[in-house]
C-alpha cells in the first residue's frame, strides 16, 4: 500500500506550509509542486541550496545517493530537500523567511543625490543606496522614507526600475504644512543621508500579459507608471499595446513631459494622453480629466489590464469608467494616495 506522507515546512517568519509527498518523491519535488517558496538549484544533491533542518520525525537522503553534506551536518539534522524522502510524518525548518529572494523588504541608508522642483507642487527626489546596501523591487512598488530628524515615515513609489539601482528616483507632491514637504523645501540637500525601508506593495506590473495595458495616473501617481513603462520596454517578445493617461490639475502642475515624449519615441506600441483640469494647456495637452480620455473607440477587451494610481476620487471614477468600457474588475489594479496626518 502506498500513500502520501505529510510534511511541514517552517519559515523563519512563522509561515508554515504543509506538503503531501508521494512515495518515491523528494520533499523538494512536493514543495515545487505545491509552489512553496523553497530555495533550490541543482536538484541532484550537490549544490546545497535546498538545505533544511529536520526538527521532528524521521527522514533520510535516498540510499546510495551521494550528497554534498558533511557527515557532521547530517548528524545535526541537516538535509538537502531534493534528496530527502520522509519516513513518516515529519517537520523541517529553513533558515529564511517565506518571502525569500526577490522583493524582500530591507532597511537601508541612502544619500540624497538631487532635490529638484519640476512643477509648482512636485519635487523630483533622487536617492542613491549607500555602500553595502542592496535591494530589489518590482516596477510599481514603493518604499518608506523616514523624514530626517523625526520619527515620521512617508511612502513613495519608485519612478525608476530595479536595474537603475543604486539610484532611486521618487516624485513627491509638496503639500502645504507637510512634514516631508517642509524638510524637502527647506533643508534637504545633496549628500544628506536618509533611512528607507522597502520595497512594499502588491501594486506592480503583472508579468507576461499580452493584452492591452491601460495606465491612469493623477499627479505624482505617474511615478509607478514610469517604472512600469521602462519595464514594458524590456519585455522580450511582442510588446502589449499601452495607453498611459496622465492628468494634473493645472498646466503649472505638469511635469515629466520630456520623459513621456521619449517613452513614446522609444516604444511604438505606447500612446500617451495628457490632460489638465483647467487653465490653458500647452500644445498636445487636453483640458479634461485623465479618466475620460479613454473612450469606447479604444476598443478595450475584458482581458485588458489597467493600473491606476492617484487620489481616491480619481481611482473610484476610473474603476467605474473602465468597467463600463468592458474591463473585468479583476484586471484593474490600483494604488491610491493615502492622506498623511
Amino acid at each position, binding site marked *: 500500500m502506498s500513500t502520501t506522507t505529510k510534511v511541514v515546512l517552517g519559515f523563519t517568519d512563522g509561515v508554515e506550509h504543509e506538503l503531501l509527498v508521494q512515495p518515491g518523491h523528494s520533499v523538494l519535488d512536493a514543495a515545487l509542486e505545491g509552489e512553496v517558496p523553497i530555495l533550490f538549484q541543482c536538484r541532484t544533491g550537490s549544490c546545497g541550496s535546498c538545505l533544511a533542518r529536520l526538527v521532528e520525525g524521521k527522514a533520510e537522503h535516498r540510499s546510495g545517493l551521494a550528497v554534498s553534506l558533511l557527515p557532521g551536518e547530517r548528524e545535526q539534522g541537516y538535509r538537502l530537500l531534493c534528496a530527502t524522502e520522509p519516513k513518516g510524518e515529519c517537520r523541517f525548518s529553513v533558515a529564511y523567511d517565506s518571502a525569500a529572494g526577490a522583493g524582500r523588504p530591507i532597511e537601508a541608508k541612502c544619500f540624497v543625490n538631487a532635490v529638484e522642483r519640476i512643477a509648482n507642487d512636485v519635487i523630483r527626489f533622487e536617492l542613491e543606496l549607500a555602500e553595502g546596501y542592496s535591494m530589489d523591487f518590482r516596477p510599481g512598488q514603493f518604499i518608506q522614507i523616514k523624514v530626517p530628524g523625526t520619527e515620521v515615515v512617508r511612502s513613495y513609489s519608485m519612478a525608476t526600475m530595479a536595474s537603475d539601482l543604486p539610484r532611486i528616483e521618487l516624485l513627491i507632491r509638496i503639500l502645504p504644512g507637510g512634514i516631508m514637504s517642509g524638510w524637502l523645501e527647506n533643508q534637504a540637500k545633496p549628500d544628506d543621508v536618509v533611512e528607507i525601508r522597502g520595497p512594499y506593495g502588491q501594486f506592480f506590473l503583472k508579468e507576461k500579459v499580452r493584452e492591452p495595458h491601460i495606465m491612469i495616473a493623477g499627479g505624482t501617481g505617474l511615478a509607478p507608471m514610469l517604472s512600469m513603462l521602462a519595464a514594458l520596454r524590456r519585455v522580450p517578445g511582442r510588446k502589449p499595446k499601452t495607453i498611459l493617461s496622465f492628468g494634473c490639475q493645472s498646466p503649472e502642475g505638469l511635469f515629466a513631459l520630456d*520623459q513621456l515624449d521619449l517613452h513614446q519615441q522609444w516604444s511604438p506600441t505606447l500612446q500617451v494622453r495628457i490632460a489638465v483640469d483647467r487653465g490653458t494647456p500647452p500644445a498636445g495637452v487636453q483640458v479634461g480629466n485623465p479618466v475620460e480620455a479613454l473612450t469606447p473607440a479604444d476598443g478595450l477587451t475584458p482581458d485588458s489590464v489597467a493600473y491606476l494610481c492617484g487620489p481616491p476620487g480619481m481611482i473610484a471614477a476610473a474603476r467605474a469608467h473602465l468597467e463600463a468600457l468592458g474591463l473585468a474588475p479583476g484586471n484593474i489594479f490600483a494604488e491610491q494616495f493615502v492622506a498623511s496626518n
Partner: protein
Amino acid sequence: MNDQAPVRRRTVRVNEISTARMNDEKTQSQYQPYKDAAWGFVNHWYPALFSEELPEQAVEGIQIAGIPILLRRAAGKLYAIKDQCVHRGVRLSAKPTCFNDTSITCWYHGFNFDLASGVLNTIVANPDSKLIGKTGVTTYPVEEIAGMIFVFVREDDFPLEDVPPLAHDLPVRFPENNERFPHPLWPDAPGILDEGAVALGLHRTGQSNWRIACENGFDNAHILVHKDNAIVHAMDWVLPLGIVPDHEEPISLIEDEDGPKGMMQWLFTDRWKPILENPDLGLKIEGANSRFYRTSVVLPGCLMVENWPEDHVVQYEWYVPITDDLYEYWEVMVRICKTDDERKKFQYRFDNLYMPLCLRGFNDCDLYAREAMEEFYTDGTGWDDEQLVETDVSPVTWRKLASRWNRGIAKPGKGVTNATKTSSIRLRRLAQGKAPGYKVEKIENVNDY
C-alpha cells in the same frame, strides 16, 4: 560605545551616465537606447556563417551580441543552440562530440542536449540523474538562403511564437518598392530572397564597436576615404568628395507594420548634392564614368548599396556585434543567376574583380576608418563630445529609428569569450599572435597542448 557603522557613499559610481543623460541635449536623449546598445541589439536575425562553412556533420561556435551560439548540420538539418553547457559553462563547440544526428554532448562531463529542443536528454556517465529533462540550453531559429545561414539571436525568454520572418530584418525589395523608391538611373536591385539569388562574399572581424562600423556604411561624407582606391581609378568613376543633403526630406523612414524598419537615402536625386570640387583646396574630381548608387539601412544593421559595384549587382553589409569592441563585418554581393553559366560568370567576376578590388581594396579602407574612430568612442567620450555636421543627418536619423524599433538591447556579455578583457587566456592568445575573433578555436589534438 558607538556600534553604528559609518554610512559611506559608494566608491564605484554606477549609472553615472544615466543620471547625466536627462540633462543632455534632447536629441541625444532621443537615441539613448542606441547609446546603451554597446553590445548590440538582440531578438533580431543576423548572418552567422556562409553555407559552405558548415558542411554536413560540421559544428562551429560563434558569438553574436555577447551570446555564444553553436551551429551544427546533421542529416541535412541545421540547428543552432546556446554554446554554453548549463552545467559548468563549457563551450560545446571547442571539441564537438556528437553520438547521433539529433543531439550534441558536452565533451567535458557528458551533458547531452537535444539539438531541436535544447533539452538535457541524458548525461553520458549519469543516465539516471534527476536533472535529466529538467533543464536545457536555449535554441535559436535558423534560416538558410542563397548560400548564407541566418540565426535569430534571441534572449532566453523571447517567445518562439513571436519570432518575425527573416524578411523583416532584410532590406526592402524591388520591383515591389519601385513606386515608393523609384530609381530611374539603374535597374532593380536584386534581393537575397529573390529566386535564383546567389550571395558571394566574405566575413571578417573588425576591431571597433558595431555602431561605429554600421554608421560608416551609410555616412555620405565618408566616401572621401575612398578617393584614392584602385577600383575608383581603374574604372575612372566619378566618386564625389562627399554628398550633402539639399532638401527637407533627404531620408525617408521605412516603418511598415509588417516589414523591415530602416531608412532610405535619396542619393543621386535633387535631395542630395554631390560635391565634386573644393576650389579652396584645389581639388576636383575628374572621373569620366558615373557610378550611381543608393544606400539604405534596416535593423539590426543591414546595409544595402544598390547598383554597386555594377549594374544588376547589389552589395549587402552587416556589422554583427560580437562584443562591445569587436564586430563581424559581412560584405556580400548578390546577383540573380538563372543558369549554371550565369552562376559561373558571377563567381569568376567575384573572384577576380569584386573580391580583390571591392570587398578587399575599397572596403579595406572602411576598416581602417572605423578603427581610427573607435578609440574616441570606446570609453564613451565620443558619444558625448562628437561635433556633428549637416551630413550627419544620416547617422542621427539611424540612431533614432534604431532606438525605436530594436527588439531588445543586448546585456553586456558576462561569462563569455572576450567579455573580460584581461583574462589570461585572452592575453596568451594575443601573445601567440591570434587576434580575438568570431569563431571558437577548436581543440585539434587531444594529446597535445
